[in-house]
């Protein structure tokens, strides 16, 4: 059993989620809002799809070392053994019996002819890619990467956004000025460029200290964690601005005045009265950001500042498929796997996000 950094964080996230669900179930008004979220049949379907993705991601987050080798595999690999191990030598079309690329063969008489070798294990649903890996397997393995980018990034950025937003709005004065300056500066650098700059520099540091990573899985995992941290550290600004504005409104409310009169200290007011009231906005922003982050992963991998090229991710799959679209005859099936799985996840997330917004946003009537 090997616990990678992102595995640990995913488990932590799972515990927080379960704790939140227990809390929500105990409070009737929250239960009502959650029931409203998935009242519509489409939204129920979206929730089910998201849960399927989440369980695949979880299964893929429990890693162990294979017997007699240095390969780190996950429980998901074990479950998918038939397609994980059916590696061909090169491209093959979907449900094909033969390899797509032809090879030269010399028969007994010395005649040279072209032929397509038979596949070791025919009927790959989405075909195989350049190095013969089953496209369906690669797309399923990419689910974990997508989910981690979508969830961990927000998880990392939330403490900054909540802390700075609440402090700035509550204390005002020079604290507010300082925090406003901080997030205006950060947000005035165009997003992709700031991420690219940060990844480039951190990457150079990791390259220099490569020796500390025993296994390749640890190195790719560290790169993923760095990507999430950089995305998180650059993206807390917009939520922080909204939370600051909301706190400015909240601090003038009577219940805050009442607890001040009763002698509660400032930090306790922020913790007990301000932050719980920001919860709706935080929740809406988490679900709204999720699909955008999954899409961003693909773009960043294309730009060259995404996850490690050795890691399974939809961005890397699209990136390698790009050149294959220019081939003659065209190889298009390696895109379909990434397209179908990514599209389903993002669509389900978008539909679910609409449900959450309808249920939790007080402005929507």
């Amino acid at each position, binding site marked *: 059993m090997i616990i990678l950094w992102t595995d640990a964080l995913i488990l932590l996230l799972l515990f927080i989620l379960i704790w939140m669900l227990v809390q929500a179930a105990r409070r009737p008004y929250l239960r009502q809002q959650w029931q409203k979220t998935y009242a519509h049949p489409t939204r129920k379907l979206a929730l089910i799809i998201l849960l399927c993705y989440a369980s695949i991601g979880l299964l893929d987050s429990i890693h162990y070392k294979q017997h007699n080798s240095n390969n780190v595999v996950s429980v998901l690999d074990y479950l998918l053994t038939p397609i994980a191990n059916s590696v061909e030598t090169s491209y093959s079309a979907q449900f094909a019996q033969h390899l797509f690329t032809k090879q030269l063969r010399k028969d007994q008489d010395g005649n040279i002819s072209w032929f397509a070798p038979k596949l070791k294990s025919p009927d790959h649903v989405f075909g195989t890619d350049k190095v013969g890996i089953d496209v369906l397997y690669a797309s399923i393995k990419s689910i974990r990467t997508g989910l981690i980018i979508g969830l961990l990034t927000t998880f990392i950025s939330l403490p900054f956004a909540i802390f700075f937003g609440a402090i700035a709005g509550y204390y005002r004065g020079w604290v507010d000025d300082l925090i406003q*300056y901080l997030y*205006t*500066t*950060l947000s*005035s*650098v*165009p997003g*992709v*460029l*700031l991420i*690219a*700059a*940060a990844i*480039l*520099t*951190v990457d*150079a*540091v990791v390259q*220099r200290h490569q020796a500390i990573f025993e296994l390749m899985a640890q190195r790719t995992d560290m790169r993923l964690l760095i990507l999430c941290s950089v995305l998180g550290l650059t993206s807390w600004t917009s939520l922080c601005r909204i939370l600051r504005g909301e706190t400015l409104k909240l601090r003038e409310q009577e219940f805050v005045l009442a607890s001040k009169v009763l002698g509660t200290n400032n930090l306790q007011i922020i913790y007990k009265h301000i932050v719980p009231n920001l919860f709706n906005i935080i929740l809406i922003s988490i679900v709204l950001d999720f*699909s955008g982050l999954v*899409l961003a992963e*693909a*773009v960043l991998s*294309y*730009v*060259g*500042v995404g996850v490690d090229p050795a890691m399974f991710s*939809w961005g890397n799959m*699209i990136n390698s*498929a*790009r050149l294959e*679209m*220019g081939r003659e005859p*065209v190889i*298009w099936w390696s*895109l379909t796997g990434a*397209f179908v799985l*990514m*599209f389903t996840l*993002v*669509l389900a997330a*978008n*539909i679910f996000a*609409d449900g959450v917004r309808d249920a939790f946003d007080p402005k929507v009537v």
Partner: protein
Amino acid sequence: MWYYIARRILYAIPILLGVNILTFVLFFVVNTPDEIASIHLGSKHVTKQQIADWKQAHGYALPLFYNAEKSSITQTIFWQKSIKLFLFDFGVADNGRDISQAITERYAPSLAIAIPALVFGLLINIIVAMGMAFFRGTYLDAWGVVLCVILMSISMLFYIVGGQFLVARILKWVPVSGYADGMIGIKFIILPVMVSVIGGIGSGARWYRSFFLEEINKDYVRTARAKGLSEASILFKHVLRNALIPILTGVVVLLPLLFMGSLLTESFFAIPGLGSYTIDAIRSQDFAIVRAMVFLGSILYILGLLLTDITYIMADPRIELN
């Protein structure tokens, strides 16, 4: 109003200084010039002399913040490489070419794609959004929203790859990629513009629809309806004008950034603009170009915010300046 604008410009200076220090720390403190040199010289068997020569040639052979030998702060990397960005002196790239010259050569192709993409995108989004608002509450509107959600769930990369495959390879209407100046260049521009417009419809139209719906529920619309105006003339004469305020102010902030071009579109369609320049720099780890682009992008963004405020003031006289 001039007083307000002047104050806003003054407020931009500390922010730009912050961006400047941030990029400086990112690029020179996390990775020292020695390490930058060894990245570019590549191989492991690089001598100290080679690194020193490379630093000399690219102007990195200076202390970071304070030059004790000459007791000056101008003979430092921070001054030479970072503060000079304020004068739009971008210096030379790590590959030895002049960055300012590259920018002047490359902004025109970027604009040739970005401006038509913005104009057509805006027009089509407004038309689709207005159509959905006109048929609000009907199946047409409901399916329109569903279609928008579906469209915005597809990655921009798929739009580009799919567009190139369908329009350029199968139908052979336009070349797959490339760029040319003047009228011959139009055939190269059509596809990138089309792809970015279609890729933006989903989120754009859905967003603008909410602006229209917000206006439609207001009192003046009820008055217009009570007056006996037809639904179409209410929509075009009253609602459209008011809904355009948030739409246009949302666009103004993007205007200066058009200059930078789009990373994805330009790189896929091989357009020699600033977007592909940036992406090439990121891929070849050319820190000098990335640093220049980060700073230029921030200046343009802050300019966009300033323009947004000015348009707000002009569009809505009720806004008070303080």
